[in-house]
């Protein structure tokens, strides 16, 4: 199977509230070859990341949009629905990083992930027919109630949003606000921190990383890529661009038109595909 050396970066400055600052930072990130931009951080949400991701969707073409979703202020019905909309409006580039808000535990985050997935699985990917001639808009046998009941959230469904283009948006876990869910696509971990089983590891790095060690880690399958915190886009992003250049032999071509999962070689986990299948 093909692999892609993933370059990921967090922007959590209040500057993302300013359209001029935000559009220039996002354009620079995309130009540099950054694959994933994480909007906000577990301890820094000076804007609503969902709104910033939605606003960024038509301004960008290839970059994956990873809003932090705080379980303190969100509900799975709203989260599932807004992420579905971002996935459609970005042609399949949505991801999310659920973070536990203050006084909220890991268990709430895990419940949120499972509830959101049950809502996305309420619609088959081929539910819509849209045949003007016969007047049949959708196939009702491909829409179902979720009837999800977890320790914190209870959601009947169906969601009033179609299944995202990617099936489920990419799921990213920041190890500083950890949760455990089967099929987590990527985890952001510190330099010495252990990786998670069956989850791609994005290793936190400085702006002048040891490239030989990172490439060796990627080739050995220890890491899926690198993650940075961007303090100053003007200074930091060119350094990331240099890393992108250095590891270009381990990166797939960024074809526009492909979804984020396709481009990063991260298909939806098989267990999640079968759980979501319609009989």
């Amino acid at each position: 199977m093909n692999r892609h050396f993933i370059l990921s970066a967090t922007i959590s400055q209040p500057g993302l509230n300013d359209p001029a600052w935000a559009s220039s930072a996002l354009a620079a990130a995309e130009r540099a070859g950054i694959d994933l931009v994480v909007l906000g951080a577990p301890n820094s949400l000076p804007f609503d990341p969902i709104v910033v991701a939605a606003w960024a969707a038509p301004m960008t073409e290839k970059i994956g949009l990873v809003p932090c979703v705080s379980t303190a202020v969100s509900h799975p019905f709203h989260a599932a629905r807004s992420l579905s909309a971002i996935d459609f409006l970005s042609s399949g580039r949505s991801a999310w990083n659920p973070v536990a808000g203050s006084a909220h535990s890991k268990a709430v985050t895990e419940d949120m992930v499972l509830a959101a997935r049950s809502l996305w699985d309420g619609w088959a990917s081929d539910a819509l027919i849209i045949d003007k001639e016969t007047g049949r808009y959708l196939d009702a046998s491909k829409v179902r109630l979720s009837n999800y009941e977890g320790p914190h959230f209870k959601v009947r469904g169906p969601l009033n949003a179609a299944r995202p283009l990617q099936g489920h948006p990419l799921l990213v876990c920041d190890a500083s606000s950890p949760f455990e869910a089967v099929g987590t696509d990527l985890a952001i971990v510190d330099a010495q921190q252990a990786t998670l089983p069956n989850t791609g590891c994005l290793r936190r790095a400085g702006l002048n990383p040891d490239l030989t060690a990172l490439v060796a880690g990627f080739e050995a399958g220890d890491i899926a890529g690198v993650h940075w915190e961007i303090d100053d886009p003007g200074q930091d992003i060119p350094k990331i661009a240099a890393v992108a250049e250095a590891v270009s032999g381990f990166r797939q071509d960024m074809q526009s038109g492909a979804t984020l999962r396709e481009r990063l070689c991260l298909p939806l986990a098989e267990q999640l595909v079968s759980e979501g299948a319609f009989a």
Partner: protein
Amino acid sequence: MTKQIHLWAFLQGIGHYPSGWRHADATPEAVFDVDYYKSIGQLAERGCFDSIVFGDQLQSRGANGHTPERVAIPTLDPIVLLAAMGAVTDHIGLVATVSTTYFEPQAVAERFATLDRVTGGRAGWNIVTTAHPASAWNFGQDEMPEKASRYARAHEFVNAACELWDSADSEGNAEPVQYRGKHITMDGTMPGPVLPQGRPVLVQAGQSPDGRAFAAATAEAIFCPAPTKEDGIAFRNDMHARIAAAGRDPEAVKIMPGLSFILADSEEAAIAKDEAVLDLADEALCIEYLGESIGFWLGDHDPKAPIPFNDIIAGTEFPAADITRMLEKPAASGIALGEFASGHVRTPRGHTVFRGTPQQLADRMIDWIDSGACDGFTLQPAYMPGELEIFVDEVVPLLQKAGRLRLEYPGPTLRDTMGIAA
């Protein structure tokens, strides 16, 4: 100066008519694509509209757990849609419907603050309390709180959100806001800088006495159905009295009734066009649509048989008294289910449909404004985007020529465009 007309485009899915998606000029596949929203946002700006408004619901369509097959669903989350549209437009206002019953004020305040900032001050909030009982089941409740309690919460919710927006600090060092009400307990802070508009424009659409009282106390613009000019005058007079009683200036609040339309070069042609769109609503669609309206799935009932009144009252998801009031008379008349359903589709959501020429529509709009029936209109094109294009190309120039509609935007924010002070 002659009184100016404010224009909103109320865009829900693929148009106002349940059968609108089947029209030859409708583009139902496009409603999942960002390019469609870019083009209609820019179309509305070309028409110098004040704002785009997206409605919202917190349940999927249908009844008793059945999803209709012939109605165009689902739609995209309105605030996400408007944020994306904000990135590809420069002037148009962006009014999103968000419920106070199934959100928390901190989250809503942050959402609109960010929307207002990234769009340079173009956000508006259509405040709703959510009425459909199936919404409760998506949020872990067995039943919807009663209307009076929903509105009491809405009052507190809006106050708490306003306190958060007002606390925003340019340096990003906002003081914590503590709110203690009967329905809302909040210990919040407003992250990020002051909103360009201070607060988003507050919009309300309630019709009941509770809804009107709430609008009188909080709304800066009001959306309502007004089937006739007289209905519009009566509603506006009533709201003006309520707004004055609440200690606010009635003239500062814009009343924006819904206006659905089908336009053609002659009245006869418009009627024929309307009938052709209505004909696309086949009996099966009408029965699904009626079932959704009454909260009872009718798919298993014979369209040729009388309305199954007793079954409906026993099985409806809605308060039985409301449905009894709606169906008692037609059921007693013995009308067949299919025939009744087909009639019901002709007045979607209680709004009437204007059928005529662009000149007739422009004349009528000016007449309503000069008669004190409204301050502007919430346009609800029967199908999208074709009918909105005709309005922008043919009605807008007439309104502009008559000196009733701006030729350019007066300033960067929605408040500037609507003439609503912060």
